[in-house]
Every structure is written in C-alpha cells, then in structure tokens.
C-alpha cells in the first residue's frame, strides 16, 4: 500500500518513523518526503589500477575513492559521468513494515541526475545515494538542498532488518561498496579453482 501525507505524518508523530533532522515540515508532500543532500562525499577517480575489482581478489575498492566534506550551504560540483557516493542529510529509521523507494526530484532529474533504489523495512541510518551527472556539463548543487524524493510503501507483514548480518547499518556518511564482501564470493571463486 502506497502511503499518503496523512499516513506518513501519523507515523512520524507516533515515533514509528524517525527522521532527524527534519528541517521543514514542508519536506513532506502529498505523497512523498523530500530528502536533502548530505555533507560527505566519496568521489571515484582514475587510479593506478585499470579497473575496480569487485571479485574480492585485488585491491580494496576504497582505493578508488577520495573523501570530501562540505558544510551545509556550501556547494558541490558534480562532474559529468563521475560516480559520486553521498548520503542524505537526514538519518532515518523505518518501521518494520514500511519500505521506501528513492528517486531524484524531477527538478534534479532535469539537470541530468537519476536515481532509483529501494530501502528495506527497519533500516536505520542516513541513506546512501549514488549520484551520477549524466549530462555533459558540470552541475553545482548546494549541500542541504532537497534533491531526493522518498515514497513510502506498507507491507502486509513485518520483517526484521537486523535478523541478518547487515553490511550497512547506522551509517552517517557514504560507504564504499562492500560488494566484494558478499558471502557467496568465496564459493563462486572456488568453482574454477
């Protein structure tokens, strides 16, 4: 079930849905919640290796990213086709039966940004977002601006986010991909040994 403003508002008031900080009530629209660009960034760069190796065999993925920080109100330039890992300014804790779908707000999609991802029920932390400027011109954005739209969906049954060993939990700044830490990587690699 798709949640409306009234239902989302009710969840916030009851403390089942936590959003900190919620700088303005107007971030909550009729059918979605606007989320802001956070202060920390991980920028991909071309290093000495020819490729990122996500097979768990080579250098850690972190060696392909640089950290950068900004203050709220400062600007950040997204260069064409550069992968930028960032996070929302808001720390969110979802109820156990609600998941959210994230997309860029249409104003920012029109600048060349796109995002489509789902956040699981029970998740807690700032939301990691992978932004790529798909246009040909660098785009400067203000840190703290409302770039993301979250739509809320209710499930019939609850699920416990912490039941399994989570790779990303309570994060407050973007995290490097831990794709090379998936538990089945070793099995896959052993198949050709």
């Amino acid at each position, binding site marked *: 079930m798709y949640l409306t403003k009234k239902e989302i508002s009710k969840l916030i008031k009851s403390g089942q849905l*936590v959003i*900190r*900080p919620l*700088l*303005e009530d*107007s971030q909550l629209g009729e059918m979605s919640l606007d989320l802001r660009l956070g*202060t920390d960034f991980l920028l991909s760069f071309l290093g000495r290796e020819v490729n990122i190796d996500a097979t768990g065999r080579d250098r850690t993925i972190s060696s392909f990213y640089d*950290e*950068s*920080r*900004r*203050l*709220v109100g*400062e600007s950040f330039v997204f260069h064409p086709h550069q992968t930028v890992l960032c996070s929302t*300014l808001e*720390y969110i*804790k979802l109820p156990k039966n609600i998941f959210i779908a994230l997309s860029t707000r249409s104003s920012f999609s029109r600048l060349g940004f796109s995002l489509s991802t789902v956040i699981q029920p029970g998740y*807690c*932390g*700032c939301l990691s977002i992978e932004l790529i400027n798909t246009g040909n011109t660098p785009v400067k954005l203000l840190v703290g601006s409302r770039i993301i739209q979250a739509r809320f969906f209710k499930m019939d049954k609850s699920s416990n986010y*912490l039941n399994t060993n989570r790779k990303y*939990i*309570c*994060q*407050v700044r973007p995290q490097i991909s831990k794709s090379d830490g998936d538990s089945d990587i070793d099995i896959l690699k052993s198949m050709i040994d």
Partner: protein
Amino acid sequence: MNLQTFELRFAQLERALLKTRSNKYSDKVKKEFHDQILDLVDQIKLKSQKRFTKDDIEAHRFILKVVFNWVEFLDNSTINLVPYEIINCLNVVLKDWISDYEDHSIVTSLSNKMDSYSLQFSLKNINDYFATQVFARYGIVFNKSLIQLNIPKYLVHDYLGNVVLYHEIGHFIDKQYYKITQRIVQREPQFSGLPDIEKKKLEMYLGEHFADVFAAQYIGLSANHYLNYIAYKAPSSDSHPSTENRINFVKDFVAGKKSENLDLLMNATKIITDQDLKIRYKKIPLKDFNNLIPPNIKNDSELHSLFIQGWSIWLNKNSVLRKKFSNPSQLNTILNNLIEKSISNYFLLKEWKKKNVPNKKRNK
C-alpha cells in the same frame, strides 16, 4: 646559520603555502589568519633578502618558525580534514570560559601517532617577540589566536577517544589563558619556601589535575576510562601525577567530595576566572541510543553528555546495544556514528532556526 640556509627555509615555506592558497576553512578566523600569513610572506618576499644583516636573518628565522607551525595546523584544519563535530563541542566549552572566544579558533594537526592528543603550547615570550618583530618590520598585527590541538589521524571520528580533547582545552584555559596553576604556586603562602624545581613540578601536577577536573565538568568520568587504558598504572613523573592519583582526583570531583588540592583549584579558579568548576552536563536518556537513533539534543549540557552515555554503553557488558551487537568493532562504529550525527544535528538545527524565514515571508 647564514643567508643561504635562511633562503632555503623561506623557499620551503613558499612551497608549503602554495598548496594551501585555495584551502577552505570552516570559520572566518582561520581564513583571516591564513590571509594574514600570506600577506606577511608576500611582504618578506618583497624585501631585498640579499641585504639582510645578521640580526635580520635571526629575526626572520624566528618569524618563519612560528609561521611554518601555523601553516601546518591550518592546512590540517580545512573542511575536508577538521573533525568539526568535536571541535564544535569544544567551542561551546570555550564560550563558557572566555569572553573573547570569537578571537580564537581551534585548529588541529593530524598526527600519525596513536594517542598523540596534546595542546601545542606557544609560550608568551615567543609570541611577544614574534608580534614585536612582525609589527616593527611589516606593520602587521595578528589579532586572533589559534588553539593548536594535535589529534591522532586515525581517531578523527572516534568520539570515545576524543573525550581527551576536553582535557587539552582545560590546559589552554589554565596555562595559556588564565595561568591559574602558575598563580596558585606563585601566590599561595604554603608553597613560598619550596625550591624552584619543586615549584615547577607542583605547577605541572596541579596543571594536570586542573585539566582533568576541567574536562570532568563536561564529560564526567569518560576521560578517566580512556586514561586508565593509555596510561595504565603509570607512576608519577616529573610532569604528571600517577594515573591512579589523577583518576581518584576526578572521581572525588564528580562525587562532590572535598580534598585539599581540589579545594585549592576550585577556589583559585573562582577568584581568577569568576567561574566555578562544577558539573556542567545533564545526562540524556539511553532510549534513543538503544533504538539506534541519534539522540535529539536540547541544550549544551545535554550535548556533552553524549560522550558520557557513549562510554556507559561501551563499558556495560549488559547494555542493550552490547547484547544486540556482539562484534565490538561494529558497535564502536555504531556508537561513533550516532554521537557524530547527534552533534551535527544539534548545531545544524540551531543554525537553521537562526537563519530560517517562515515560508509565507519568503520571496517577498
């Protein structure tokens, strides 16, 4: 020392400054300070160094030494590097104690050494000589001051470890700002007969106790927990009382117990600073931590208690989070993240309320 070696150091400074010219800082004081350094170096460059006398070289050798040190700290205090959440907490402390806090800026140098937390002391006579020389030769006055803290590079986001910085700010308040312990030793009649070497040692001891108690006003016993690991069973030395002595001193203060030296410090602090050494934190409930939510902080007293509560969770084998997360490394990351987000939310919301204009009035 000759002109050529001075020129070598000047060339090194120019090279270091070249890298820092586009630095972005989190506050105006650092930016103004940096601009003044650039101005000074530009003026030195314009002077005909070939005609420098021996005295000129000596004076400039000293000027460059001070400037190089400042550049090191400023370059490690850019927005990208400075741990501004903990620095913001320390700024709150400064506001409690000094009226001209806006003329001071906390800068950090990130050290490769573990546990290398310290306040870089700049001695008054050095500052005076520098100020005299720079004004006489170039008409430049540095009105602002840098409070220079060394922090281990790998512990920048470690809020349980960073409680030690409250102790270092205590040293700043005592030794560089009010000179509380120095005055105690000089003025209290019971110390007048002591040989100078004993007076110096006593001043050092009281200085450590002052910094410990100063920190405990804000973070309770938190620094004790860390001290008991990094200086475990350390005996007294020429500069520091034994770890056991320091820990007990803080315990007495937090428990409100009296002791001779504690009374001495508290009375002298009141007379010299017109401020009380007292408990200045108010513990927040653990509920939000336990629910993995960054606690909402309402005021400065609650802000400092984040560290106390972080430590209480960490030390308690039966805490809700200890039971939930058996991997200490994961729990440590979670605690640090919750504390950091809580601090940043507190300052952001404060600033937002100051600057925010209600929707109806916007765009008019």
